[in-house]
């Protein structure tokens, strides 16, 4: 399979316009990141990362373990000072003296929920309402608890909650201050499928409400389901765009054809078709490289019927985001071996 070298993307994608922004800052971007780099001594956590995220957008940040996802979140959240580069977070320039102002406008749900286990759910939330100097604390806590469907467990000590519930409390805590940008660092790591689905449901409902979300994950189906756009990071930013765009960029489109018995001379039947660029044998049939499946599929069907072959199925083969991801990361692994 061919991959264009054009995957070293530095271009910034268009901010999504269909989603509505919660606060009035529509038009400008929630995050603008330019050539941001972070080193820990000799070790490079991430290097020369540039992208932009619009208000109301759900932006997926994908990458393997150690790719620099958490470090990026911490840097944008003013916990770590960048080594070089610049960024604007929620409309405020990323600088040491703006730390407190930036942190009051965003929130981060870290990889581990980090709840005070001896305190109740409500006491945990009260502490953070105080840290954000919120008024109307009771009402806000009720609203946050309602958002995560956990009103009935408010009086329970967090130590008695399951991992999934703790994750939801951490999400409620991150929602308390109505953040302009919500960073979720692997919100479903270590959760079972049911608990993951619940967290996905919560994120989807936040997306509906137009909350700007920066979601790091290495679960591809999660990103594909929830994100308007994704970026793939492996120390450097490898790729950025809508999930379907990335697929088209990396993979040529193809048709999977299954037939009851093999063709005697496939080249004669398939080779001459205008929509078909090439073909290869596949289990119980053929894979055809095509420029447009909608034009090629009827041509192929007619040609096969004309050749007297029984067709079992003709379908466009869909590459998942996972294929894109693996393709890219494998490339990196090979490049390192060379």
């Amino acid at each position, binding site marked *: 399979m061919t991959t264009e070298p054009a995957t070293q993307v530095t271009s910034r994608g268009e901010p999504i316009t269909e989603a509505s922004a919660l606060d009035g800052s529509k038009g400008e971007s929630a995050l603008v990141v330019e050539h941001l780099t972070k080193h820990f001594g000799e070790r490079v956590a991430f290097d020369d990362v540039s992208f932009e995220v619009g208000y109301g957008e759900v932006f997926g940040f994908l990458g393997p373990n150690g790719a620099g996802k958490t470090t990026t979140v911490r840097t944008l959240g003013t*916990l*770590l000072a960048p080594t070089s580069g610049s960024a604007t977070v929620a409309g405020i320039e990323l600088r040491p003296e703006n730390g*407190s102002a930036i*942190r009051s406008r965003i929130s981060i749900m870290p990889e581990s929920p*980090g709840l005070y286990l001896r305190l109740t759910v409500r006491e945990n939330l009260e*502490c953070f309402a*105080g*840290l954000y100097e919120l008024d109307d604390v009771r009402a806000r806590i009720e609203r946050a608890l309602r958002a995560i469907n956990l009103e009935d467990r408010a009086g329970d000590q967090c130590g008695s909650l399951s991992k999934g519930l703790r994750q939801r409390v951490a999400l409620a805590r991150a929602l308390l201050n109505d953040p302009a940008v919500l960073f979720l660092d692997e919100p479903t790591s270590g959760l079972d499928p049911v608990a993951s689905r619940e967290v996905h449901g919560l994120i989807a409902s936040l997306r509906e409400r137009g909350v700007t979300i920066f979601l790091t994950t290495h679960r591809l189906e999660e990103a594909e389901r929830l994100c308007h756009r994704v970026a793939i990071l492996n120390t450097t930013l490898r790729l950025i765009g809508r999930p379907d765009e990335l697929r088209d960029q990396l993979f040529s489109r193809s048709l999977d054809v299954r037939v009851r018995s093999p063709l005697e001379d496939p080249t004669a039947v398939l080779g001459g078709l205008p929509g078909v660029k090439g073909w290869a044998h596949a289990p119980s049939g053929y894979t055809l490289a095509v420029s447009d499946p909608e034009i090629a599929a009827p041509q192929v069907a007619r040609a096969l019927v004309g050749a007297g072959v029984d067709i079992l199925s003709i379908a466009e083969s869909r590459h998942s985001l996972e294929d894109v991801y693996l393709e890219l990361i494998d490339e990196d692994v090979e490049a390192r071996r060379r």
Partner: protein
Amino acid sequence: MSFSWTRVRAIAVKELRDYRRNRFVIGTMTVLPLLFIILPLIQVFHTYAHVHSSNLNLHVGASMLYMLVIPAFMPSTLSAYSVVGEREQGTLEPVLITPIRREELLIAKALAAFVPTLGIAYLVFGIFLAAAAFFANPVIASAIFSGTHVLLQLLFTPLLAGWGIWVGIAVSARSTDVRSAQQLSVLGTLPLLAILALISLNVIAVSAGLAVGLAAVLLAIDLLAWRAVAAMFDRERLITGRSA
């Protein structure tokens, strides 16, 4: 954005709630005071019955020193946990991503150790005084209440607590695990305990002037330590346990 007492209060309240449900903390807070009130009470009710009255003043002062071990020692074990313990539990990061400033976090942590320490130390001292006033030999009781003993006790309790707290927090901010932080911070209070021991063994004779001088030095150290520890409370270091 300026210094916010709302944020200080949020953290301090959380810490106090957490102490109340922490068996280790409750244990330290009961065993240590019990130990260091029983000793002076035994001396007051038992030993001093035979002491010549001219030496009585000295002996009474020495046994009251035992109670100063409480404010010197207790806060250092509490505050040794405060940073590294939270880092291990993963509860530090959520706090650091709120608008809280390093000075606010530091003051909140210090207050959370200072308030219960002061409360318990003064309570223990109050019990001691009450026992002496009502049940002790009148000669001994008057030796306790005359002179500067009570005043010095009240003065040194917060000063020693301040030392223990700054040592504990400083060690905690730089440690990578709770156990070594607690051991180190106990070591850090040893100089104070050594001075107390020397005084109580009569190696150092305490005059009122020396006591006031000592108090002034401790106050100065406490104030300087607050600056030094505040400089240590860098977010990057707190999160990663190492310097930027």
